[in-house]
């Protein structure tokens, strides 16, 4: 294990300018990968709480038996993404209105018939919510006989869910593209290093070297290239997140979410090493004696 590592380090040093260039390219690639991950992380954080803040208000028809209402409440409660259901009777609605108007309560004082509707207020859970289930849920509510009207910021919600989905798809596509690019950089670098040492390798074979002995220095080289790039990318991402944190204003609710997950410091070098080894393994191909 020590010898191939020594060979790899020596070879990296001998071709240091080309390798430095590769490490920097890998670093940039991984930095963008990390940044994209950072965006995903923050979009998740931003949107996670959003549905919780949205409520569905279901206005009920007048003169409905309590048992029918209870049946609907029970069926609503069964949904996985429903956090809570609250029934507000006509009387409670009026009380709430009075409470809300307070000083201007005289406005409603004179009314002897309660003009308000009984309603259900449904709160949603943030996670595990998708557009299809939500649409089906709203449709089923509207079909209920006792339901008069369902009010929900559907447009807003749908747009938000749509944006989240698009961002996630975008992140995955961009991430994959950068992974492929990094593998390719390692591939071409190791391929070049291998061709430079082709004669040496041929001699080693004749002296009785196994495939493993021939391969391992090159795999180590790929691994070290990836590791170097990963470390650069980690440092870059940490600097950028520090900068954004300084910029972000805790009084702006949006900016509070701008954080860099700490795992990225370990994750990027790990991803780099994996992609580096994969790239060099492809570059070496099948070795024949």
């Amino acid at each position: 294990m020590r010898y191939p590592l020594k060979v790899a380090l020596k070879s990296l040093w001998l071709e240091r300018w080309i390798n430095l260039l590769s490490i920097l390219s890998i670093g940039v690639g991984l930095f963008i990968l990390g940044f994209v991950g950072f965006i995903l992380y923050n979009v998740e954080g931003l949107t996670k709480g959003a549905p919780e803040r949205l409520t569905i208000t279901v206005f009920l028809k007048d003169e409905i038996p309590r048992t029918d209402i209870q049946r609907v409440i029970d069926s609503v409660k069964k949904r996985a993404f429903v956090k809570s259901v609250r029934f507000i009777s006509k009387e409670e609605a009026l009380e709430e209105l009075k409470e809300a108007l307070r000083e201007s309560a005289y406005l409603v004082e004179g009314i002897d018939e309660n003009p308000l509707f009984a309603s259900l207020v449904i709160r949603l859970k943030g996670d595990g919510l998708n557009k299809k289930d939500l649409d089906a849920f709203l449709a089923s509510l509207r079909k209920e006989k006792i339901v008069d009207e369902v009010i929900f910021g559907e447009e807003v919600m749908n747009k938000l869910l749509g944006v989240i989905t698009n961002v996630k798809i975008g992140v995955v596509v961009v991430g994959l593209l950068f992974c492929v690019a990094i593998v390719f950089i390692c591939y071409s670098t190791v391929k070049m290093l291998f061709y430079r040492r082709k004669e040496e390798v041929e001699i080693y074979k004749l002296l009785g070297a196994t495939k493993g002995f021939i391969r391992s220095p090159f795999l180590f080289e790929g691994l070290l290239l990836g590791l170097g790039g990963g470390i650069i990318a980690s440092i870059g991402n940490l600097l950028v997140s520090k900068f954004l944190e300084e910029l972000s204003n805790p009084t702006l609710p949006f900016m509070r979410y701008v954080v860099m997950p700490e795992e990225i410091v370990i994750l990027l070098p790990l991803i780099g090493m994996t992609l580096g080894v994969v790239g060099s393994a492809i570059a070496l191909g099948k070795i024949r004696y």
Partner: protein
Amino acid sequence: MIRFEGVTKVYDTITALRHVTFTIEKGEFVYITGPSGAGKSTLLKLIYLAERPDSGNISIAGWDYKSLKEKAVPYLRRNVGVVFQDFKLLPNKTVYDNIAITLRIRGFKEREIKERVYEALKMVNLRHKADAYPPTLSGGEQQRATIARAIVGEPTILIADEPTGNLDADNAAGIMRIFRNIHSKGTTVVFATHNRELFRNTGMRVLRLDSGNLVADEIG
């Protein structure tokens, strides 16, 4: 130890070896001779598996070529030390490292490698050149470095392809002494040369090739 049975080797249009059959026993010292292009190097390459026969069978140190698994090739090669006609020394590595690589491949510890490499260098009288780079050596010194690399792994078979080519008589005699010394320790030696002087009156076995045919199996 080495057995060829009707071995034929064809390069494109040239038949380098044609239906060659012979056996070399353990501990023998055998010369392979013949004019340039006769097929001497080809025969040796078949022994250390740098080339594959087109027909016939080869068996080396108990390994049958036909049933030999790809994975076993490196381990078979470790039994065969080779002094290449073109040396095959790495110009950017010191003489020491050129020889040590043979043992690193076998997974030896650096301490033992050092001991063995210096011992091999002593045998070829090249200890003082351990830290030199091959291009700075004379032809005879490069030749001896190559021999040291071939013997450092203590192979059961030692193969030499024109190890005295281009050397003056004194140098050649020195190299012959090294080979006889190694042979005396029980190593099987196969020695290719077009120089009849080397085996005349030695009483050693000589295989004579001509245009790919084995034309004589005699005593020198």
